[in-house]
């Protein structure tokens, strides 16, 4: 067992931290919360130039050929600064699925666009139920003259307002079992019939409603197999859950750091409040949560990276980290007192994102049920 990062990973971490500290201050984060796009196209081009958008893709498409663990380290750094924009959607919900199951033509067409920072992707999966289950996919794609026509409403779709392409998950066979009639389509976001509404969310993170009305998609835009792709979708969600946990880990670290720093400095009753046992215990339990999250997120990412199965670990990790981040922001806020509930403090930025991150790719309860199934229980 070796818990350390490799030398290259340490360099990646340091350079990412330096870059993001300079280029992504909290002022930018706040600005982007109210920005229509929600990200800085200029900064986007800079990270593409640094190779981040291509980091995890093979060199043959112009990528960096680095590992999923490397990507996780980058995501942790992005989580620290609350990096705004469609990086996660594009890489985890666009590029990697195409790399997984795309045809060679599709890879050659789309991956270079992602790697170079030209195209923004997202996945249009969840609908009104908000659930990550096969039976929740109700949007229909009907064969029509060799092509397909999509109708349905997708909800909570990240970054759809700026996406160039959607991976739209739709039902192509409604007579088969839930899991057996689902297909992924690569849909040009400019196709006629698509309308998008940005939702107002706690994290102001541009989740959207996307309505597909008679949207035509050519047959060659099917990603992976017709009807038999739910297993792949699950893998995409599980991997994204692990990646999201790495991002959350970064946020938790910062909340812990800023809390510990504050309670060392803040004087009340003539002593730093960090001498009070209640405050110390708050910080200790925050540490338990941060270190627990680190251990499980790294292990899960390492499993993805080394080709081991990771389905259980994704569930364990997302269940733990979702709850842990909630506890960390709650204890951090309580330890800070009044100053940290003000909108101009950094704490609410993390407090709000902790909730959004908890909800995405299944909350703790959803994943605990998965673990229960793996323990042998029958669970709905």
């Amino acid at each position, binding site marked *: 067992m070796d818990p350390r990062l490799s030398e290259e990973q340490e360099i990646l971490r340091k350079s990412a931290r330096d870059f993001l500290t300079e280029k992504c201050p909290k002022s930018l984060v706040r600005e982007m919360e109210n920005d229509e796009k929600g990200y800085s196209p200029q900064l986007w081009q800079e990270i593409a130039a640094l190779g981040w958008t291509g980091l995890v893709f093979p060199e043959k498409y112009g990528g960096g050929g680095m590992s999923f663990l490397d990507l996780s380290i980058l995501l942790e750094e992005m989580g620290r600064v609350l990096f705004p924009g469609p990086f996660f959607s594009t890489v985890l919900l666009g590029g990697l699925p195409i790399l997984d199951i795309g045809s060679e033509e599709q890879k050659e067409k789309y991956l270079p666009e992602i790697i170079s920072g030209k195209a923004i992707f997202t996945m249009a999966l969840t609908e009104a139920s908000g659930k990550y289950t096969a039976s929740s996919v109700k949007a229909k794609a009907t064969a029509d003259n060799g092509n397909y026509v999509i109708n349905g409403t997708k909800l909570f779709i990240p970054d759809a307002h700026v996406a160039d392409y959607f991976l739209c998950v739709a039902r192509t066979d409604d007579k088969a079992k839930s899991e057996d009639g689902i297909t992924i389509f690569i849909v040009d976001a400019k196709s006629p019939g698509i309308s998008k509404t940005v939702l107002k969310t706690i994290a102001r993170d541009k989740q959207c409603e996307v309505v597909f009305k008679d949207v035509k998609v050519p047959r060659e835009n099917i990603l992976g197999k017709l009807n038999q792709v739910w297993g792949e979708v699950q893998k995409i969600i599980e991997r994204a859950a692990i990646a999201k946990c790495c991002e959350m880990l970064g946020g938790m670290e910062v909340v812990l750091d800023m809390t510990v720093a504050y309670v060392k400095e803040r004087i009340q009753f003539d002593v730093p409040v960090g001498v009070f046992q209640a*405050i110390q215990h708050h910080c200790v339990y925050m540490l338990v949560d941060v270190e627990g999250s680190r251990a499980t997120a790294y292990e899960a990412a390492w499993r993805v990276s080394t080709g081991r199965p990771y389905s259980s670990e994704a569930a364990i990790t997302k269940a733990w980290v979702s709850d842990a981040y909630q506890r960390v922001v709650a204890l951090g806020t*309580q330890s800070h007192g009044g100053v940290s509930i003000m*909108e101009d403090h950094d704490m609410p930025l993390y407090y709000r994102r902790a909730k959004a991150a908890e909800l995405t790719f299944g909350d703790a309860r959803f994943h605990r049920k998965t673990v229960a199934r793996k323990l042998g229980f029958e669970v*709905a």
Partner: protein
Amino acid sequence: MDFELTPEEKAFQKEIREFLDKECNENVVAETLSMEGEGPYSKELLRKMGANRLLTPRWPVEYGGRGMGAMAEAIKVDEINSHHAPFPLDGVEVGNALLICGNEEQKKRFLPGIARGDIEFALGYSEPDAGSDVASVQLRAVEDRDEFILNGQKIYNTEAHFSDYHWLLTRTDPSAEKKHRGLSLFMVDLKSPGITIRPLITSAGLRTNEVFYEDVRVPKENMVGEKNGGWTVIMNALYGGGGGGGLATGTKRVIDTLVKYALEEKQDADENQWIPETMAGLYIRTHVGELMGLRATAFADLNVSPPYGGGGAVSRLLGGDTRRLLYNTAMQILGPYGQLAKDSKWVPLNGEILREYMDAPRWTIVHGSQEIQKLVIATRGLGLPRR
């Protein structure tokens, strides 16, 4: 033993409930739930309530009250909360302290005005370096003939931007050996020259304020209690009200709303099987807290110490925890919809749950942090030693 309200209390409850059912219209509710707090509609309602002696039922009749007990006060608070009516807490808190520590002239000058809903007070305790440690306030008051000159800064003074007076804790003796012995309390007209009020917005979008004092003059007759005796006055303001809150109509209404939502929107019983027992647990906590509060309030009215001296602080501690649990659970029930804000497409329950969830940390921090509450219970209630 008897757990029913007296006929007089029931009548008062009916009166204020019917009054607010009729008068607390949607304009008022919108103001209560708005970022800015009290506005013109609220002010109008408060004056109407005042005219009906509904604001200060516990005060003597001569000062605009009804001469009732802590239970009537608890009934009033409960009805105001559950109607989303404006909450003139600070004025009542000030008045309670004035009743104990003020001189007759001060009582006559301020109490009837508060009772009528004419005079609003904002509490001025916290400073950037004096949070839970209130005794370390630095805002300086220097005696100058028949006035005091004030310089310094207050923070988190929520009602300051719509109030008439500031209930201001100041330092009059910076050399006092024990720092809480060098404090004095003033009632300062917020229109006095030299006062600057700057908004501070919480992450839930609620407005509070920083208040800056620069050579502000306040007449001596506006000092409450003795010079350097300010600590006694605020202890009376904080704890002099007695009673322990009690009725929890508002919280039970939120629970009902959530139950209804769950029954309508979460019909997938298998998947949501955790909800009934969890909601039941919250209902039980609320009900138990209500009974504890009612007992503490009834003891206060009898002027008897409750067993273990825990009293209202104990039920408030439970209530604070319940509130946090309730909105965490509510957010879990709403699932991904919970993250949607008031004016978003698809928002459930008008976004009120999200608003309360965002506001929840304030409840365990403001009005003395929970840690301070526990210290008070431990040392005063249980007699545990202090360091």
